[in-house]
Structure formats: structure tokens, C-alpha cells
């Protein structure tokens, strides 16, 4: 992706709100923006998964990590490759080269969702205020992801070491932050 001057983070104006909320929690919670996270959507027959240059998780709702890339399972034939900001072109090229000739879909969808990282020990309690998933550690652990609803918005949750990444549509980003601030 080029032309960075035209790229804008929908949550830029909320940075102070988010930092203030984290301060109020007394170290129990953090809420951070992850602007311009690269997201590439991959649709592919799962029998071809081994051809991907990034290891694709085949178990539902899990994540594989490979250096600076993470791959989320979104469906039986759908994955989301996450990478450093502005690396979409390289990821797309690597996938297209490896899967040339196969029936597939590789699209840079970085502008499709905004990433927010909710961290700290109190985060699960905050998530549970708006999410119907079973977030008990017996069923929700690091290395898992899920597409679900948080309050009224569709969200992709990715459980990481001591933090939960939330991906939402840009037009819902403000709503998500407002809703999280109520829970904090």
C-alpha cells in the first residue's frame, strides 16, 4: 500500500479517551490502538492449505504465528493474514505466487477493519459485558480467535499473550470504544 498521506486511523481522535480510561483502571486494563494493521483475506480449498507460504490453521477458531505474520481461521475455507502496517502488497504477492493456477481469492482488506488491543488482567470481565462467548479459561485461551458479537457490533476477537485484539468495521470503531469505556 502506498500513498500513506491519504491513510487515516478512524480512532486517532479517541487516543486520549482510551489512555485516560486505562489510567483510571489503575493498571488493571489497557486500551490501545493498532493503526494500519495489514489484513489480507484468503479463501482457499483447505486441501491446498499446505501450499500457503504462511502456515494456515486448520482447527476452527485458532491462530498460527509465523514471525511477524499471524493467520486467523475465519471459516473452513477462509483465513485472515495479519501483518505489520503497509505490508499488504508483499503478503498478497507471496500468496499469489504460491497459489498461482489454483482456485483462490487473495485480497488486501486492511481498510476493512480497525484493530484495538484490550490488555490487562481485567479485560475478560470487560469483554464479558458485551460478548456471549464462553470466556472462561477452559474454553478461551491464548492462540484462539473468534468471530462474534460484542454488544451490537460484529467483532473478530484474537486472544494473545495478556491481551485481546478486537477487529471491527471502521464505522463501528467509535461505538466499540464508547462501549468498552462503559465497561472499563
Amino acid at each position: 500500500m502506498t500513498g500513506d498521506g491519504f491513510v487515516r486511523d478512524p480512532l486517532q481522535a479517541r487516543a486520549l479517551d482510551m489512555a485516560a480510561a486505562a489510567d483510571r483502571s489503575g493498571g488493571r486494563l489497557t486500551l490501545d490502538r493498532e493503526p494500519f494493521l495489514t489484513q489480507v483475506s484468503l479463501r482457499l480449498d483447505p486441501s491446498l492449505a499446505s501450499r500457503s507460504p504462511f502456515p494456515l490453521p486448520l482447527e476452527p477458531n485458532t491462530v498460527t504465528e509465523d514471525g511477524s505474520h499471524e493467520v486467523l481461521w475465519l471459516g473452513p475455507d477462509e483465513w485472515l493474514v495479519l501483518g505489520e502496517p503497509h505490508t499488504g502488497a508483499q503478503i498478497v504477492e507471496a500468496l499469489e505466487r504460491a497459489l498461482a493456477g489454483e482456485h483462490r481469492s487473495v485480497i488486501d482488506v486492511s481498510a476493512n477493519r480497525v484493530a484495538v488491543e484490550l490488555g490487562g488482567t481485567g479485560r475478560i470481565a470487560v469483554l464479558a459485558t458485551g460478548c456471549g462467548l464462553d470466556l472462561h479459561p477452559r474454553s478461551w485461551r491464548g492462540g484462539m480467535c473468534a468471530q462474534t458479537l460484542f454488544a451490537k457490533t460484529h467483532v473478530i476477537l484474537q486472544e494473545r499473550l495478556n491481551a485481546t485484539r478486537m477487529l471491527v468495521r471502521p464505522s463501528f470503531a467509535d461505538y466499540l470504544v464508547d462501549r468498552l469505556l462503559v465497561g472499563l
Partner: protein
Amino acid sequence: MAVGIPCAFCGVRPFTEFTFGGEWRELDAPDAESDFQRVYLPENAEGAQRERWFHVMGCRTWSTVVRDTRTNEVG
């Protein structure tokens, strides 16, 4: 907690993540009369009913679920 619907891939999830796809029905019928029945005359059972549910807010796949229409118990 809300009614849980078992998705073939994701396990039991709240029904709010799904859309209802109606009663399960055959994909085809041998003649016009039974095709009319298949499409327009659902059983609307009181009790256990086979239904289709689409995990629209999740993995976007269809599952077939048996739900008790009196108690919403999913078996």
C-alpha cells in the same frame, strides 16, 4: 443465557450470531405435487424439529439442528 445453537465448526454459540434458515427440507422432489408440499407446506411441529441455522456472525456455514419448539431445548 440465550439459546445456544451448535455450529458444526465453532461449537455452541449464542443464537444471536445466527440467522434462522427454516425447517430442514429435501433439496428436490420427484413430482410437482410433492415439490409444492416440500416448499410451501412446512410441518411446523410442536416439539422436536429439524432446522437449518446459518452462522452469519461467525464462520458463515450452515448447520442442521434439532430444536424443541416448545422449550427451545437444542439436542
